[in-house]
């Protein structure tokens, strides 16, 4: 087989010689080694340990060495607290993913306006992407302050009663979600705007010639062409939402009455908050998180394979 290649391309003789082959494999091993060692140490081995730890409880001196079988998983499935946690995680995902997609889409469509200086607006609307979860949450914490916060100040101007944004069990989760939606918007606008710009003008012109206008153009031309970007974002923002931690830690500490305790916050709470060190229980939760995220990511890769043309 190599002989054929060599005959076809004489200058490739050097490139496919057997000694070269060995050197090429050697180079590949050397080049991949740094990443593979790091992945093994900080990703794959810890992943195995997460699953192993999930079968262990703490011994007398607080080390996770006591084999308890599947009891922690059974605890997760049966405890009402855990059910609340999973419900809060799901609700939080719904309250962040859908609004951030719809608002991102609206902003991206607005950025399609053909006016001078649109590039400035495009740049500015990406602003939330520069914020960390900490900086955004700290600002929203000040907004949500019951006494001096901007949000209640605004309600007062409208002669509305103040809201306990972070202190009422019903308002807390939506409040954390609002901050998260804002934080996610910059990224979503960038992705959807890039998706819209990738549609060639001729497509719109042709649709217009066929009489499509306004909403019809949006529904039958723009949105179908944007579906890949929207689906990509749906998956990515769902995963980001499931992994949310900082906004909950900074704004509510999982409260009031566990109303904002999501899966990842529960992982933190059981192992690190208030001197807790229930690493086994947290690991069982982490294993559950892993399974959920892999399920969602698999869908994304299936789609990405079809969409991105590698070679």
């Amino acid at each position, binding site marked *: 087989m190599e002989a054929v290649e060599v005959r076809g391309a004489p200058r490739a003789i050097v490139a496919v010689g057997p000694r070269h082959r060995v050197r090429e494999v050697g*180079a590949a091993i050397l080049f991949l080694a740094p990443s593979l060692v790091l992945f093994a140490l900080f990703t794959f081995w810890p*992943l195995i340990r997460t699953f192993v730890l999930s079968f262990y409880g703490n011994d007398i001196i607080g080390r996770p060495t006591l084999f308890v079988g599947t009891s922690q998983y059974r605890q997760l499935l049966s405890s009402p607290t855990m059910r609340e946690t999973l419900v809060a995680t799901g609700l939080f995902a719904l309250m962040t993913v859908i609004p951030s997609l719809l608002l991102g889409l609206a902003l991206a469509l607005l950025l399609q306006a053909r006016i001078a200086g649109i590039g400035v*607006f495009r740049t500015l609307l990406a602003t939330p992407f520069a914020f960390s979860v900490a900086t955004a949450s700290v600002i929203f914490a000040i907004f949500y302050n019951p006494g001096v916060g901007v949000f209640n100040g605004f309600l007062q101007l409208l002669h509305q009663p103040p809201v306990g944004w972070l202190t009422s069990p019903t308002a807390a989760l939506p409040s954390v979600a609002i901050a998260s939606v804002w934080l996610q918007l910059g990224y979503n606008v960038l*992705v959807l705007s*890039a998706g819209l710009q990738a549609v060639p003008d001729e497509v719109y012109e042709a649709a217009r010639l066929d009489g499509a206008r306004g909403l019809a153009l949006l529904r039958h031309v723009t949105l179908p062409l944007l579906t890949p970007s929207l689906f990509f974002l749906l998956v990515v923002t769902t995963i980001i939402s499931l*992994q949310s931690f*900082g906004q909950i830690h900074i704004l509510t500490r999982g409260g009031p009455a566990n109303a904002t305790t999501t899966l990842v916050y529960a992982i933190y709470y059981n192992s690190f908050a208030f001197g807790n060190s229930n690493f086994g229980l947290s690991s069982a939760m982490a294993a559950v998180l892993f399974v959920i995220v892999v399920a969602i990511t698999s869908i994304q890769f299936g789609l990405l394979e079809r969409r991105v043309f590698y070679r």
Partner: protein
Amino acid sequence: MTRALGRALTYALMVAVTFVLLFPLLYAISGSLMSAQELSRYPPALLPSRPQLSSFHDVLQAIPLARQYLNSAVVAIAVTIGQLATAALSAYAFAFLRFPLRNLAFGVFLATMMIPWEAVIIPNYLFMSSNGLINTYPALILPFLAAGFGTFLLRQFFLSFPRDLYEAALVDGCGHLRFLWTILVPLSRPALASLGIYAFLQTWNQYFWPLLVTKTSTMQTLQIGISSLRDTEAATAPNFILAGVVLALIPTLLLIYVGQRHIVRGLTSGAIRG
């Protein structure tokens, strides 16, 4: 006439929408220039009556902010350089070299993107803890030096070069490392910039991991330092917390505004690990 009116309305809408979206940033800047009393006044003041910089001075007194700034910079720069190096090497192997199990190995790299950091955070914490690395730079840096996403991004870019380039270089006796460094790296600057900006933003903005592995205020990163202010001073003096926020935002805002075209290029190349 109607066209001019339409354009004016579009501008008005754009400005209004931009104002609402940027409100948290504008509020942070404005509030950082106010006195504590003015910021806590009712009805809420939106602009400082007499802009002052004392809150920036105050926040530097409240926490070792300069040191935390340095910590964040050291960690983010080290991770960025590390990811660029490891990803360039592995992307080169996947794009140009032929070796057994190549597809399997690439699958392993892609698989790392599926694993949420939160799912492996406890064993990593226990690893750092048992090796005495808690509250050190290595704990903040080491786990993030390799990136499946970066490899994926650079491999795609490398594959866009004609294979002749690679073969010609090898025939000329150019080694793999030299070919990568002297030819590919200069040609791949846009992709490297995308990856570099991502790595920096992500690391600079990290919260969960630095919260766990830093124990003293002098080892904390900026994000942890600023949010720790919220527990103590938020109600009484939000103005200097906002000053800290504004300072923390400077590098990332610059990257977003100046490097936006690089960011957009990297956007749809794959998921970003939170």
